[in-house]
């Protein structure tokens, strides 16, 4: 997955080699040429976009169809050159063949060139960079469970954490968490056979009507998958979920009354009143944003069956972040053929070391950098590199050595 851009963009490459030098002419009449990021197919131009030159005097220009700005005259000085446009994932893919990106993701194309010295009329060739804009990320998935104080298996301490990686407040209201079907060998609806669809066994909806559940930049919410209690009372290595933000449960007011319910709005297992995380995996989780009503999406049986549980078929375009956690069969390596998520959503996978779980292994997203108290998490849409597996599950904690 990717990060919100602009700042990183400013450190981006600035290639000028492709431009021709002209004789110095003062600060009159020079050319700013914006080149599309390298991955774009040739013939794509940064056309009709606003470009800002901010210095002692502020100017704005619009690029021509070739992505160029002819500057008539500016006051010599030090300027920030700022420009940017947004594409949808679908548009981006049209321009970048083979791109791996969710359809409704947002991609920012632009540049922020700081402290550019403009004292003579010199043509500038400016390389644009692109970045996928994402605000919510799945940052921690703890599904392996642990052993209780009597060494018995303990699996009600699982949780999922969602992180706001953007610089804006994000409202969770109405967003969904989805859990893909996990029927075992052979995978019943693998991505390899379903290039556009994902089959969900459960969907959960964040409550609220629009602005009830704001999430600050760098903030996170913890969803107790089964029980929002302090599990450290029962198991030595576990987590305290008594302060979780949401609890998946039968009804509002049951379980821990202080923790609001995260309602299940679609469920292959009608009587199951918790998040069906499997201790040994596979667990494929997604953040879903859609303006459709997911309850109207079609439901299908297991492939070849006409009875039993039914899975909700969803177009992949509604996924804004997805993490594939494969199971780790004892005799073979994790089988990538069982992946439920298409490459553009998750090019890799995370996996815990244990086969059956109960080893308090937690799948956690790595930290990219830290600014003050604020953490930015790694997002390259590849869980193999974005995540690490740690054996000290700790909700809301990002200053762990293993994450750096």
């Amino acid at each position, binding site marked *: 997955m990717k990060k919100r851009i602009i700042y990183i963009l400013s450190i981006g490459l600035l290639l000028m080699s492709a431009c021709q030098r002209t004789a110095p002419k003062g600060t009159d009449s020079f050319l700013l040429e914006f080149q599309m990021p390298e991955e774009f197919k040739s013939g794509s131009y940064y056309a009709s976009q606003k470009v800002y030159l901010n210095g002692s005097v502020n100017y704005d220009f619009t690029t021509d169809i070739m992505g160029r700005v002819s500057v008539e005259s500016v006051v010599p000085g030090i300027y920030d050159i700022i420009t940017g446009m947004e594409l949808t994932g679908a548009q981006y893919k049209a321009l970048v063949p083979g791109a791996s990106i969710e359809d409704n993701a947002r991609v920012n194309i632009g540049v922020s060139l700081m402290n550019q010295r403009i004292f003579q009329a010199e043509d500038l060739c400016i390389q644009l960079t692109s970045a996928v804009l994402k605000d919510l990320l799945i940052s921690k998935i703890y599904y392996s469970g642990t052993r*209780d104080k*009597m060494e*018995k*298996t303990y699996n009600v301490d699982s949780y999922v954490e969602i992180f706001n990686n953007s610089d804006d407040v994000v409202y969770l209201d109405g967003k969904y968490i989805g859990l893909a079907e996990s029927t075992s060998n052979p995978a019943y609806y693998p991505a390899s056979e379903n290039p556009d669809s994902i089959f969900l066994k459960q969907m959960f909806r964040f409550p609220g009507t629009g602005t009830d559940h704001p999430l600050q930049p760098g903030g996170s919410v913890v969803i107790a998958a089964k029980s929002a209690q302090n599990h450290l009372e029962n198991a030595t290595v576990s987590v305290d979920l008594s302060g979780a933000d949401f609890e998946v449960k*039968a*009804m509002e007011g049951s379980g821990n009354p202080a923790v609001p319910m995260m309602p299940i709005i679609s469920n292959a297992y009608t009587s199951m009143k918790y998040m069906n995380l499997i201790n040994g995996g596979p667990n494929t989780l997604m953040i879903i944003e859609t303006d459709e009503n997911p309850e109207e999406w079609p439901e299908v049986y297991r492939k070849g069956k006409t009875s039993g549980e039914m899975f909700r078929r969803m177009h992949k375009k509604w996924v804004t972040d997805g993490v594939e956690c494969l199971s780790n069969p004892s005799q073979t390596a994790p089988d990538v053929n069982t992946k439920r998520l298409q490459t553009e959503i998750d090019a890799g996978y995370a996996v815990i070391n244990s086969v059956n779980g109960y080893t308090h292994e937690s799948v956690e997203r790595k930290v990219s950098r830290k600014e003050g108290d604020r953490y930015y998490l790694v997002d390259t849409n590849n869980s193999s590199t974005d995540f690490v597996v740690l054996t000290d599950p700790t909700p809301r904690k990002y200053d762990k050595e293993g994450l750096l």
Partner: protein
Amino acid sequence: MAQAQSKGKAVSLKLTVLSDTDGQPVAGASCLLTDYGIYDISDADGHLTLEKVPVGKATMQVQMLGFEDFEKQFTFRKDSTFTIRISESTLALEEVVVTAKPSSTGASTASNIGRMAIDHLQATSLKDIMQLLPGQLMTSSDMTSEEKMTIRTLNQSTANNAFGTSIMMDGVPISDNATMSEKAGGTTAGGSGVDMRQISADNIESVEVIRGIPSAEYGDLTSGAVIVNTKAGYTPWEVRAKVNPTTLNASIGKGWKISDKAGSINVNADYARASGDPRVKNRSYDRYSGGVTYSKTIGRIWSTTTKINFSGILDLRTVDPDLLIEGTETSQKQASLRFTHKGRLSFNKKFSRSLNYAIGVSYSANETRTSSIVQASGGYAVVNSLTDGYYQVPYVTSSYRASGGTVSRPFSFYAKMGNVFNWSTGPVNQRFNMGAEYRLESNKARGFYNDDDFMPLKTSTNSRPRPYYDIPALNQVSAYLEDNLSWNIFDKMEFKLQAGVRFDMLQPGLPEQVYSISPRFNASLKVAPWMTIRGGWGQSNKTPGLVHLYPEPKYSDREAAMYLPADASKQLVVYNTRVTEVERNNSLKNATNSKTEIGIDLNFSNGMTASVVAYRDYMKNGFGNFTEYSLYTANYYTAAQGILLDNQGNPYVDWQHPARVDTVWTTSGRIGNTQASLDRGIEFDVNLGQIKPIRTSVIVSGAFMETQTWTTGPNYQSPSGVPATSVYAQGGTNVSPFKLLYPSGLSRDINRRFSVNMRLVCNIPRMKMVISLANQIIFYQYRHTTNQKSDPIAWIDTDLSYHEITQAMLDDANYMIKGVSLAAQRKNPADSNPVTQPPIWLMNMRLTKDVSKNFGFSFFVNNALYYMPYQASSYSGTLTERNTGTFSFGVEMYVKI
């Protein structure tokens, strides 16, 4: 009186029974004319007399412990005196039988297995012996799990076949009717057949397995009967010890003849210890058994055998030191005492040639103790209420060590009286066999218990204690009448007909009273001296056991409030309990098996024999679960509605204002006649006789078998596609808006197998040695579960009203029942794939040698060539190792003095 035998004349026969080995008279040998039921026992000088024998052909059987059976057909025309020589059982005999022999008594298919075959096999328990039957696979016995006996079936998933196999030991059945299912961690399942491990092989003299239509004399069975005769009378001191990687077994036995008047006494003791896989140190099975048999003949006409047997079993599963976290320890102890007395009175009167009777009493004290760590899984409500209502219950969050057990005391009493007489008219002789039986079986005991009901052994509704005290005893009365007709049509042809009927009634006078009438016919026609054609049809009935008639009440526990704030002292967990009892008058019937068979037996003068039989066993009403619904409402209370806080912040339930009211479906634990099975196949047994130059006999037996099983009870299912946000889905389990009724029995389990066992038996009398090579080839193995398409035929509303679903409704794609699409309930599954296995063979080798008159040994190697190939089934393509666990070897030594 003699003239009263209708037109046929009667003769009197005087016989002397001598040992073929030393010419000495054999005392205590029984001589029976099987056609008439006339018999006598030889005295000290080997003399015996058979009186009032009708003129004509009759088969004479002479039997004596330690001697080979003598059987021959004679034609009696006048009073005569002759001598019968019988051979001592020893490997020095020209021909020894170490395989199962097709039985020649009656017209039904049966196999006889004698002592020599048991020795050669080195059997530890009765189960080991069964592999000699056609179609049965060779097994290596590991006595660490229960061993049940099935007849002519490939079905392993339902218990009805094993439950319907009657084990008769010394004329008295060993019953499984009063066995209850073990809940405390043991392995006993009630109503699933007798555990054969408890029957020691060393004390068995002979076994007969009736696979066809049994005589009307045998009842309370569906699959067949296993008739076990244990040793009685004089035997030498005999000490046996055998050892193989999984089992140790030692036994000692001796029979003394006190005097002609005082009879004889035979004692035996046996100890076996099995540990299963020798690498696994935490499982063991110990069996101690012993018995005393007293035989006495009173006044030459009344022979009696009285036995007292004891057996003690300790089945232990302890903590595996490498698996500390499991922490489960189970011990199962069983002590049984068994008394049997049987006798035969030879009145030799017109309407009572001989009167036989048997009485058996057995009592067993079984105790299972389990201690294990119960997993709380983060939170578990201890619901132990035994009556309906809402209960505030403890909520356990940490796993705990719990203990409990089961006490079971199965008791049985059996009494039988039978009478045999015969009636001859010219070439037709009829032997009438009639009798009555009474059985009483009970199990009054503490049953399943937890040491602490607040720390139960099970975290499910199964955690409730189950005392057996109020379970009624089983009473069964039976009567039978049978005519055995034999008709010498011409000089060479003989027609035999066995026509019988049996009446069984269980629990007379009680609401659950059930009876059945079982007609049985067997007929055979000896077309030529070397060929007999036979066939039969009959029904047999198995009465339900205690587990079927008196199932445990069903406890439905439903969460009613789960208020779990972080402060544990303020938590409130409420459950609703609903108890559903099964009606006593639930019209459970006997399971009826209809058996049909037709076969041909060939006996050539060169010693070659062959028999082929085709059979069909159809049981449409075996015991199985029966779904019946009742509905009730259950409330749910939440912090948002229904749970209020008092001044101290303690929660309490405002009963009148639930957050949700669910209409809940619940079933009872009812057992019905819902399990159907069809077993059919062809069995063959060919003895090619001895190839003299190499002294080797070739015996080929095998069977093509097919088993189909399906259920016939009402097939209810919950509708699919109930929206997750609807009120029905919110309620969780058992709250579906309605139930759908689908046609039953469309899905069938089909198993087929074709296996052949070729045994080469090489017998060298001069070396007193027998070597046998058993080659088993499974040519064909097939398994398929059919998965037909089916449409619901009705739906049941929450008021239990029945609504038929018509074709028009099904055709309407938009038809809704209570907001749920009917079209989504039509099932059109992809048929599952049949799986066949490639052929596989297995070779076992055995050797028995008498080193001297007093000492001998046996040796065996199973899977002698260590053949364990990797093969793929027709379906998966995954290579799996076959014949695993078949390799083993062992040795047995015996001393006879």
